[in-house]
């Protein structure tokens, strides 16, 4: 029973990170209408930045957070300006293939530059553990969970309360109508893309004390994020948060009850079932 609870809570903690990765993807999909297959590679990039900053300065990834996020914002802006603006009106398949191409380029570039080695950030926080009764929770994971949930909720509030956020929701609902209302949709697209990239960058920083970074780490998490986004109803931020937590728990429980090899299989199965029976997502509105 205690082990079951332990598995449940570590699932929740991982779920927080999945949620943060997924809200960025949701934002980009919902507002820009882009299925961004390179999202996972942005995560990988941020983790490498965190690693190299740690390697050269020996600072905790949290301490170099700001530098990391500024680099990620710049990357997001350049990718949007140079590549994405050209295909905003193109067919969905073209957009998907383009981001897929981008993901291959980034992944293989990382492989060429950094080799396939696993690189770990090893600071005090990586081994710290919080004891809460019978539960043993790694400090880095608790920290990541707290920040991830806070950031996801902040994004939600931003979309609900601010002018730009409202404009983003308007564009997500109906692009042409939003343009008629005088919203500069290209600018909104760019902002949403950059915010989404910064959010996944934040996830990368939070993950760097927990997971080793290697060139293909992004692809593991991006398929997972896609599943979360579909479960969450495609363009809903609360849906993505709940979906992230759900996938975290499903993965952890399947690992505990059936064995670690079934972790992936469990959530892919869940994904296919949802696609077939409720393609609007578990938490979708329709």
């Amino acid at each position, binding site marked *: 029973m205690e082990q079951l609870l332990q598995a449940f809570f570590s699932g929740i903690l991982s779920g927080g990170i999945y949620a943060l990765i997924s809200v960025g993807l949701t934002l980009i999909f919902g507002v820009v209408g882009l299925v961004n297959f390179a999202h996972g590679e942005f995560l990988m990039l941020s983790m490498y930045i965190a690693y190299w900053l740690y390697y050269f300065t020996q600072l905790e990834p949290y301490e170099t957070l700001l530098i990391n996020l500024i680099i990620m914002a710049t990357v997001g802006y350049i990718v949007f300006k140079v590549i994405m603006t050209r295909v905003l009106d193109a067919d969905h398949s073209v957009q998907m293939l383009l981001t897929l191409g981008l993901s291959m380029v980034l992944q*293989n*570039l990382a492989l060429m530059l950094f*080799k396939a080695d696993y690189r770990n950030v090893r600071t005090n926080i990586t081994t710290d553990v919080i004891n809460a009764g019978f539960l043993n929770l790694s400090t880095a994971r608790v920290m990541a969970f707290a920040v991830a949930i806070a950031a996801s909720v902040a994004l939600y509030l931003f979309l609900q309360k601010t002018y730009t956020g409202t404009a983003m929701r308007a564009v997500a609902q109906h692009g042409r109508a939003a343009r008629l209302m005088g919203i500069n949709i290209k600018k909104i697209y760019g902002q949403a893309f950059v915010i989404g990239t910064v959010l996944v960058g934040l996830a990368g920083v939070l993950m760097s004390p927990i997971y080793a970074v290697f060139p293909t780490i992004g692809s593991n998490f991006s398929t997972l994020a896609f599943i979360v986004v579909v479960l969450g109803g495609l363009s809903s931020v609360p849906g993505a948060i709940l979906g992230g937590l759900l996938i975290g728990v499903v993965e952890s429980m399947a690992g505990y009850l059936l064995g670690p090899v*079934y972790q992936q299989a469990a959530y892919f*199965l869940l994904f296919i079932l949802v696609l077939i029976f409720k393609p609007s997502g578990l938490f979708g509105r329709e």
Partner: protein
Amino acid sequence: MIKTFLKRQNAVLWIIAVASIALPLLTDNRYYQDIIIMTFLWTGLAASWNLYSGYCARLSIGHAAFLGIGAYAAALLYTNYGISPWVGMIAGGLLAGLVALVIGGSTLRLKGTFFVLATIAFAKIAETFAITAKWITGGSLGVLIPYAPGFINMTWQSKIPYAVLAWVYMLAILAVCVKVEHSRLGYFLRAVGEDREAAENLGVNASKIMLTAFVMSAVFTAFGGSIMAMYVMYIEPTSLMSMTNSVQFILLAIAGGLGTAFGPLAGAYVLVPLTNLMRGNFPSVSGLHGLLLGLILIAVLLYRSSGILPALKGFFEKRRKGDMG
């Protein structure tokens, strides 16, 4: 006028396809022979992919799974039970067709984006299955196919028979594609690809048409997978069913010309030798192959989204007009 030109272009491409069997005979270099075999194989594979995704204009990013089914069927039946790979190839095709029937039956009605995501999930599940179901597939270690030359074992010492086999495979798929292109199925497929609702209103049974093409595409891909497994003599699940392989199908087809029978030939004949030669010349740089595929994919999409063949066609048409004027 354009019609006669198209006919002639197809004739020229047929001649190129048939005549290219001379290539592996012209060289003794096994490295070049290997590239030629891979070019033949990938032409057939990309044409198989094109049969559904190209004509229907619906993207499958999961075809590496069908490749894997064909490869595993032939390799496992042969390695574990001594069943001839020729039989294994048929079995793999049947299995892939059955899987496509189930997967297609439940996902083909999904809207564009969802369908694409479902195909990715399908490939991931197939890969996960190959790795976890150790008692069937040998897990992540893969399958090492024993070397026992002989026609019945689809194994030869020389590379020439493999080249002939891959060439026959390529020609067969191309023939089917040309046949389909000028059949009711082909016209219906393109109609559904252009506007599904309009096609349905005109009485086309879109689901049935799409499912037929999807199953055909899966079966032909699996045949290619069996040949590839027997040629390479080793199966490794993660690279066989990787995203990179799934993307290779797409890249070759769209680089050549989506939804044209000979587009995949044009794409594969240019890109497979190019990427393989690059990889061969810089063997120490891992990731170069994937990087190239990605860059070419981006370039094709941004600058020549119609592909090599249509671009050539446009070029010739312009010249002909120039001649007349």
